[in-house]
């Protein structure tokens, strides 16, 4: 099921620009490699296309890169890029710090940034997080490097939309992810004579059929709140509309409104039709995915990273995806919307190696390395990503879906304030678990947030 990669990066970013800002990826499923690794042995052909024109690094001669662990395959590419860079810049050592995802996105990065050996380059999600980094001086203005420096010509101009804060480019785009779709087991669907649901009514009917057959219709591991939270937030946006969703999550207005109560009422439908595993709020995302991998569940609500994960964990599993089914008539949101985020690498505004850091990121995004990243299951946003290597058809279609989406919804935990996201996710989990009515849950969010 492979075909030539189509050019989707520009479309993806064009769509993300429409949403004004981006968000993050939830890759807690990928293998973790915490700790610092420097110049691991190269396993890939070396390329030395980076110009060795930058000044020697400031401080101790080390160029530091920090990111959440991207998994073994990508780590190999990153380590090879480090080797290439060191070869092109004698006297420079590149240290890459891969941290466990959850650690990195919470305490890890702030600790690194405020430490003595702060990273010169670090991974970040677009949106509120990136704006905060810029406001605090940790995101360098790299506009000049993009317009007439080492990063010139590597990306389409529109790609920098979500990476721009106050008119300044402060991030080198890396990838874009759809953070939630409904994955389904094609064999289980065929065995039970059901079709992938495209409307809400169809979804509930599929739930009934599968549930009667003793199969969990949809598995989700929501112990940490984001897994089902992300999915249900998308559902809510379809009902209340993208504008209301964005406004309320941005701090304007209350959650406790008839529209939002109606939206959470659809979660009650899910509960009543036994759509979701009973353990949903007791297990984490990995356990939720395992139910799908092992054929216990017919569907799984999670993001684009499932493809490489499933190929590793369940190579015989036949699966495909549908976007969140269209909600009933009268819903205010766009029923073809997609939930997704863009990510990238930021040059630390307080680094003594800003010029060198931009050259490193230019090397990362050269043609050869981009092709290696595609092999490692990344969906890069660089221009050259549209050529060459074939990727999994599902990943390609996800990219196209994001590119063609008439509206893109940001996940609460990366696009908005985290405290708000936690309160909202808790409300969604409480309704999904049958512990609160929609009205009670939303009132609690407002109470918690002081609205």
């Amino acid at each position, binding site marked *: 099921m492979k075909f030539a990669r189509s050019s989707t990066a520009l479309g993806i970013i064009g769509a993300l620009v429409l949403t004004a800002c981006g968000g993050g990826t939830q890759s807690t499923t990928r293998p973790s490699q915490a700790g610092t690794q420097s110049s691991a042995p190269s396993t890939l052909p070396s390329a030395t296309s980076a110009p060795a024109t930058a000044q020697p690094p400031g401080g101790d001669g080390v160029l530091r890169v920090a990111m959440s662990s991207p998994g073994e395959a990508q780590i190999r590419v990153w380590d090879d890029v480090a080797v290439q860079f060191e070869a092109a810049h004698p006297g420079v050592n590149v240290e890459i710090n891969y941290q466990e995802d959850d650690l990195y996105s919470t305490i890890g990065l702030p600790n690194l940034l405020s430490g003595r050996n702060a990273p010169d380059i670090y991974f970040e999600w677009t949106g509120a997080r990136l704006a905060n980094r810029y406001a605090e001086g940790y995101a360098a203005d790299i506009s000049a490097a993009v317009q007439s420096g080492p990063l010139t010509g590597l990306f389409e101009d529109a790609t920098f939309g979500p990476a721009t804060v106050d008119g300044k480019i402060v991030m080198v785009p890396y990838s874009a992810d759809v953070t939630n779709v409904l994955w389904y087991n094609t064999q289980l669907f065929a065995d039970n004579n059901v079709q992938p649901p495209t409307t809400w009514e169809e979804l509930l009917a599929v739930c009934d059929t599968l549930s009667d057959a003793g199969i969990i219709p949809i598995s989700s591991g929501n112990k940490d709140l984001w897994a089902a939270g992300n999915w249900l937030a998308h559902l809510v946006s379809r009902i209340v509309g993208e504008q209301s969703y964005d406004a309320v999550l941005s701090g304007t207005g209350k959650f406790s409104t008839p529209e939002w109560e109606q939206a959470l009422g659809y979660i009650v439908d899910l509960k009543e039709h036994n759509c979701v595993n009973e353990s949903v709020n007791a297990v984490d995302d990995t356990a939720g995915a395992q139910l799908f991998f092992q054929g216990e569940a017919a569907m799984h609500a999670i993001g684009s990273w499932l493809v490489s994960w499933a190929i590793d964990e369940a190579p015989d599993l036949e699966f495909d995806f549908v976007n969140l089914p269209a909600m009933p008539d009268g819903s205010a949101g766009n029923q073809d919307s997609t939930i997704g985020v863009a990510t990238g690498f930021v040059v630390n505004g307080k680094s003594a190696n800003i010029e060198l850091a931009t050259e490193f990121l230019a090397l990362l995004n050269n043609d050869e390395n981009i092709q290696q990243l595609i092999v490692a299951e990344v969906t890069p946003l660089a221009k050259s990503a549209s050529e060459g290597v074939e990727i999994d058809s599902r990943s390609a279609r996800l990219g196209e879906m994001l590119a063609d989406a008439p509206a893109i919804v940001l996940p609460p935990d990366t696009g908005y304030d985290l405290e708000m996201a936690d309160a909202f996710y808790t409300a969604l989990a409480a309704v999904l678990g049958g*512990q609160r009515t929609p009205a009670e849950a939303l009132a609690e969010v407002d109470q918690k947030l002081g609205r």
Partner: protein
Amino acid sequence: MKPVRAATPYLFLLPALIVFGFAVLVPLLFTIGFSFTEWDGFGEMKWAGVDNYVRALGDRTLRDSFIHVLVYIGATIVLEVLVGLLLAGLLSARKRGSLWFRVAIFTPVMLPLVVVAVLWSFVYNPDFGLINAALAAAGLEDFQRIWLGDSSTALLAISVVSGWVWAGFYMAIFYAAFSQISPEVVEAARLDGAGEWAIFRHVKVPIIRGAVVVALLLCVTGGFAGFDLFYVLTNGAPFGATEVPTTYLVKVVFRNGDVGYGSAMAVVLTAVVVGVGLVFIRIQRRRAQAAAA
């Protein structure tokens, strides 16, 4: 005539004071200082006065987290201290073969709590876990539960794990205390016709009352500091039903980046723990004085 060395005692105290100062006093003072600020941990620090404390007073999650930890402490007093006391009593009455029993019961204490939590997360797993599988095998499907996902069972489930770990620790303390009791006292009670249960309840336990009080104090103050099991097993889920002050504090500081408010919570938690400890000691002192009188 003895030489006057007025500074000597203080010089001997200095190393301990320095360690105490850097390990306890300075961090505490910094935390108190941060609690009056609005700060994300690395950006600009803004003076917030007592706003964080006012916020803490109205924070329902914080209030609920204290209720949860009190319930947890109540459960662990039974599952850890009382069970440990009973096990120690059993061992002190029947010494033959007790070594292996003691080793078996004490072994969980030596395991890192994170390992214990991961182990029990498999035991409690509603889909693949040992407990539900055993209940199904025994034809008791009606008793199957989503142990960590049901707000009515989650806190108790964590308390059981805590009891599984720490009952052995308290058993060791009580067993050591029982071993100090003079055999003549026990023998005299036996000659008077007392059975093992009566000896345990009316002779042994009153004699080791001091050890019991210490164990209770450790259990109560340790309960407030409980974190590992909660974090790994539920991290506050479901719907905040197992949120305790420590897990909530970590979320506020490290996830939400609200160091100012988190510091205020830490000060409140410290004050509560110290207060409980002082009350405990005062009650114990009064009882001792009353007994002496």
